């Protein structure tokens, strides 16, 4: 008989918070849906796998290293990042995926009564971490599928500590161009932190797309997030990082757990950046081809779709997204329902290799008429 009076132990903001329910593992899903294969188009993974150098590091990870603790502050990875981006190693902080650095930033700057400002239809983790930390997340509606700079500014007050801008935005793929971002940063001034989440940075090849690492030279309150989970296809190893002014990083490190990134992940991330131009170009080509194929498919079906930057597209269905998910899963294809992103009736589809995209199109047509 469970007889622990949790109500008296647990803070009210934790009692109110609903824990995130991740999807079941593939093997479970295959069993549940009775399929012998599963194309994962739900998490924006890069199916080309990690770049060759990273793959070699993973395949030949020396067993001698297994009993040894990793570098607690990702020493060599920060060196490599500094060299790659022309920064100091002290300007980088590496975490167990981006979620950990999101948590560290919020812990470092916010206290009871503070709030963060972000969009209502974006990556959910900023909102979640704020809420389970007992902070208010102020959610600003998107405007034409994009973050609305003026509405973000209007939502802020004297207790706003951090703006979170996902650029390009997951799931819409829209982005603020350089002029928009600079205008926003000018309006914010230097009294609040502005986080620019560039999880899909390497997918964007637009001239007017701003590089957050360059912006921080002029705006010391900018903190940039990037990850090795998307373009570099190391999602299983969980490596995300932030870059900011050294003084800002010094503050965030105080709220950050050391030793959270394992040795294999650190080594693979270093290797992933070696000679990666060809790999990135090949991935971008794959995504462009997939975007064209799916765009035509949705056009032919007369369906509204949103196709910005990043390796994903959104499409609005004439039925519920959650029903369509079940129909597609029963055909061996996982898509991401968008109700959780507050886009009910939409799905997000990851853009991958042509054979898989063609399989998606066949299943899509079947599910639409089933």
């Amino acid at each position, binding site marked *: *008989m469970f007889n622990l009076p949790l109500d008296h132990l647990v803070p009210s903001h934790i009692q109110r918070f*609903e*824990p995130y*329910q991740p*999807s*079941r593992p593939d093997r479970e899903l295959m069993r*549940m*849906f009775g399929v012998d294969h599963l194309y994962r188009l739900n998490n924006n993974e890069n199916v080309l796998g990690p770049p060759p150098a990273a793959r070699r590091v993973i395949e030949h990870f020396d067993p001698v290293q297994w009993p040894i603790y990793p570098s607690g502050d990702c020493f060599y990875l920060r060196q490599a990042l500094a060299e790659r981006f022309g920064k100091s190693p002290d300007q980088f902080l590496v975490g167990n995926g981006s979620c950990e650095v999101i948590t560290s930033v919020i812990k470092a700057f916010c206290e009871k009564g503070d709030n963060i400002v972000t969009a*209502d239809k974006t990556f*959910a983790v900023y*909102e*979640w971490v704020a809420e389970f930390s007992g902070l208010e997340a102020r959610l600003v509606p998107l405007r034409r599928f994009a973050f609305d700079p003026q509405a973000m500014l209007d939502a802020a007050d004297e207790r706003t500590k951090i703006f979170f801008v996902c650029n390009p935005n997951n799931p819409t793929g829209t982005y603020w161009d350089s002029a928009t971002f600079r205008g926003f940063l000018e309006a914010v001034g230097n009294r609040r932190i502005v986080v620019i989440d560039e999880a899909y940075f390497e997918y964007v090849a637009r001239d007017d797309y701003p590089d957050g690492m360059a912006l921080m030279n002029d705006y010391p309150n900018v903190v940039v997030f990037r990850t090795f989970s998307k373009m570099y296809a190391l999602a299983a190893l969980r490596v995300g990082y932030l870059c900011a002014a050294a003084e800002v990083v010094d503050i965030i490190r105080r709220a950050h757990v050391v030793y959270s990134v394992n040795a294999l992940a650190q080594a693979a991330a270093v290797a992933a950046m070696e000679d990666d131009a060809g790999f990135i170009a090949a991935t971008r080509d794959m995504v462009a081809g997939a975007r064209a194929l799916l765009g035509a498919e949705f056009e032919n079906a007369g369906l509204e779709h949103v196709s910005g930057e990043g390796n994903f597209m959104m499409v609005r*269905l004439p*039925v*519920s*997204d*959650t*029903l369509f*998910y*079940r*129909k597609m899963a*029963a055909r061996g294809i996982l898509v991401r*329902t968008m*109700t*959780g*992103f*507050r886009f*009910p*009736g939409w799905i997000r589809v990851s853009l991958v290799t042509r054979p898989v995209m063609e399989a998606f199109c066949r299943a899509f047509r079947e599910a639409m008429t089933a």
Partner: protein
Amino acid sequence: MKHDSPPVFLTVPADPAWVPVVQSVAETVARIFRLDRTKGLRLAMGMEEVLLYLSQVVPGTPIKIEVGPDATAVRAVFSLDAEALDLSAMNITASPSLADADGQNLPMLLASRLSDGFSLTRSGRQILLTLFQEHVYPAVSPVETAPAPARPPLRVERAREASLIADACARALGRFPGDRLPSWFSTPARGVDLILAGRMHLLLLRDGGDAVCGLLCWQAISGKSIVFSGPWLLSGDDAGAALLLEEMINSLARGAAVSLVSDPEATPGNVDFAGHGFELLATLPGRAVGQDAPADIPVWFRHLREDDGLNVWAHPDFAPFLEETYRRLFLIRTVQPVVETGVTLTEPSVFAAALNKERRQATITPLLNGADNRDNIAAHLNGLSQEGYERIRFRIDLAEPWQAALGGELVRQGCRPILVLPHAGRADVVVFQYV
């Protein structure tokens, strides 16, 4: 009504000498929480009767009692450890009988009849018995207004302001048949209490002139399932239905709920739910109050996130219905046949009954498994039929093998499964109707 007031706790032995203490606590709590005077007396009497009964059957046992507010009611929770306890007098079909010559069960019979509702759970040796006394709320009269098109721009807002809610309810009552609306619309203050307690959520659709031109409300019926009612559109068009539905879904999008279902008792007939991305869960046989012609009631549903699947128990007599439903809805379920345990039960069963005399509908929920399940089902079916209830429904939680086994007995006694409510209990709930 103050919703965050803490309850009062006391522990007394099951002994008649302690009745005055319990009585005094009940009367004080009723006064503090502004329970109507008559209801306060009924609360005190009901609690007194429970303690008297326990004094007879488990004398001296420590009884933990918690009395406090419960949104629209005051509740009293009795908690005790007992190997076996005859609570059959809580059944609505119970009556004083010759078999109970010494009147031992009479206090429980009185306690259940004095209460507006009760619940009962057993976990191992621990028994929790809860009695409810509902507050008395003033009724509003319908306000009839000529429907006029809503003036753009439309907006949706969360409702918490009592006078605005009361006005919207009165106008809804003037526009729709009262028996199709949520019952709280006729006593809006009850709805306000539910909202302030966080038990219910209400959206209002306002137009460019600030007029309220639509309502939509929802409540959790389990940790993973939400039931909603609306959109009730007060203007002459269906403008705003999509706004209300989308706002509700977005409000729930990052919560724990998996399943969103329209209220079978209160769903507007003039909204194209399929066009708003809802799936048809079932069509229930129904009849509007005062009408002889049958009027089928569609029940609409959508998932709010991926459904990870469930194991559910089923008796072979209704397993085909379940499997067909799951196949049609693409719901991933592992249906496990119930096995006859061979264990002999000694305690009698207890069922809770929610009665709606106006709609001539009774909904029965099994609370305690018992040796007399078959007879108890028959007693409920016969007794309620004789009292003029036309729709007698049983709600069976498929997480409980003993309840699934009851489903077999229900089929044998003339009930049929009509609806599966995903995640509405600890697992899915199947609704049986007596035909």
